């Protein structure tokens, strides 16, 4: 598996790009998905630049989480076109598992494995790398996830004793250990305390300088704080894509305006 991953990295660097779009990490066009006869995603098209934050917002049931799961290939039977690092997702060298290394997915509820903190960080690596992790890897990713200071003295203790907020950051570190080319986050701070929320947001802003993030959130204020590009989804479609400033001050579409009005009403 290790060798597979290495070759896939190499291929990403050397193989011929499918299209010539530079500076774009992910390009999705015409993505459709139906589950159990229901159309969850209808005709999704968007692209992510090679770094920066992208916020996916929209009412419940709009298909935001489903979209992330499609990108991570947890739903495999989507239709349409998905170019990741200029490669078709379906023909990814090394297969789906290798592709998932590139797309770190952080779930809403942290799912740590019942083993030590250190083992959790290296969980996704190949067995050789797990036995002898690259020097400094654990510290680097834990620092990136703003968790290092809290756990540096107890890396061998069980991850289950961490608080939910710490567990969520551990999940981010775990995904980062695979050196992904983008991070997909599904409401990473829902049901977390304000302090953890703040730490995670700090970590995300920092990460966005090196890779694209696609972050689902319900929290309008959080979206405003994080900034970047806003992708507004409703009923399985992308309604509006705009920069955060434009979207929150002068939304173009009626649905977006309605959504913002109701959301702010709910909050106050």
């Amino acid at each position: 598996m290790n060798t597979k991953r290495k070759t896939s990295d190499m291929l990403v660097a050397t193989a011929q790009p499918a299209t010539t779009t530079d500076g774009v990490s992910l390009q999705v066009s015409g993505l459709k998905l139906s589950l159990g006869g229901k159309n969850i995603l209808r005709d999704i098209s968007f692209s992510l630049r090679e770094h920066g934050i992208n916020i996916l917002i929209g009412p419940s049931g709009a298909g935001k989480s489903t979209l992330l799961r499609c990108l991570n290939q947890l739903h495999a039977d989507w239709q349409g076109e998905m170019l990741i690092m200029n490669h078709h997702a379906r023909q990814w060298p090394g297969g789906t598992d290798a592709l998932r290394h590139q797309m770190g997915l952080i779930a809403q509820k942290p799912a740590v494995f019942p083993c030590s903190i250190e083992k959790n960080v290296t969980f996704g690596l190949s067995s050789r790398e797990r036995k002898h992790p690259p020097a400094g890897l654990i510290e680097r990713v834990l620092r990136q996830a703003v968790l290092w200071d809290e756990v540096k003295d107890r890396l061998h203790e069980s991850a289950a004793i961490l608080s939910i907020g710490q567990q969520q950051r551990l999940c981010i570190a775990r995904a980062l250990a695979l050196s992904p080319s983008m991070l997909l986050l599904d409401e990473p701070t829902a049901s977390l305390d304000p302090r953890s929320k703040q730490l995670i947001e700090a970590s995300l802003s920092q990460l966005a300088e090196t890779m694209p993030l696609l972050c689902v959130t319900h929290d309008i204020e959080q979206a405003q704080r994080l900034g970047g590009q806003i992708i507004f989804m409703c009923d399985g479609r992308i309604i509006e894509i705009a920069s955060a400033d434009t979207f929150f001050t002068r939304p173009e579409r009626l649905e977006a305006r309605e959504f913002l009005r109701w959301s702010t009403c709910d909050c106050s």
Partner: protein
Amino acid sequence: MLNLWMRASVFITLVVVILMLGFLVSQSWPYWWQYGIGMLFAGEWYPYERLFGMAPAIIGSFWAAVVALIIAIPTGIAAAVMSTELMSGPWRGLLRGGMELLAGIPSVVYGLLGLWVLLPFLQSSLNLLTGHNLLAAGLLLSVMVLPTIMVMAQDALHEVHINQREAALSLGIDWNTRLWRVLLPQAWPGIRSGILLALGRALGETMAVMLVVGSMDRIPDPWYNLLAPAQTLTSRIGREIGEATFGSIHFAALMACGLLLAVATIAISLLAQEKRGQFTFFPGEAGSRKK
């Protein structure tokens, strides 16, 4: 009225349990008193010459259970993995139904199958004088305990939370790594209880074993010889209890066999409960064990 009924039920049950164990001990007492604990290791069991060594039956029970588990554990776990990880709804239901069918076949019918299908087959394929042997008992038992292991393992695998599966999946961990590093370790407590339950069942199974084991009180020679007629604790009780007169030393010796079985299976279920974190005869333990 309700209160009386509830308390009477509990009381009756407790009295029955205590009486049962009490009578097992008291009826086997003459044997222990007269022959001593050393008879557990003695090899001769000839009731007419008043020799009552337990070793052949203990070794027989041990071997039959070991053979059964060696076959049933990999098969049962593989079937459970297959049904939860590789099969879709209807097939899974079919496999589960098949297991329930196997579990539902009465042991005496297994005995019949063993006697008239397995024994002739073993006899001809291994070129033996008689098919009656420990291997046959073990094979038959493996079929009988397979559903226990499979169903417990399946339930345990089902209980591994979907979050854990998806977290592993989204990290790009491949199928067999997921199996060995996420699913099986997390399902292990349940699988282990299933194995222990199956062990208890294999030790206590009577009819099927009695029909195929041959009922010869000999220590296997050499010790790993599974292809000669032998005896287990249960088959000895089943074969001889009709001949022994109540109150005789022979009867007491058979009661001692029963007591051994009861002690062994109680120990196994205590172990199963303790490992599940449910060992609760000492209050406070269970609470502290949970994280």
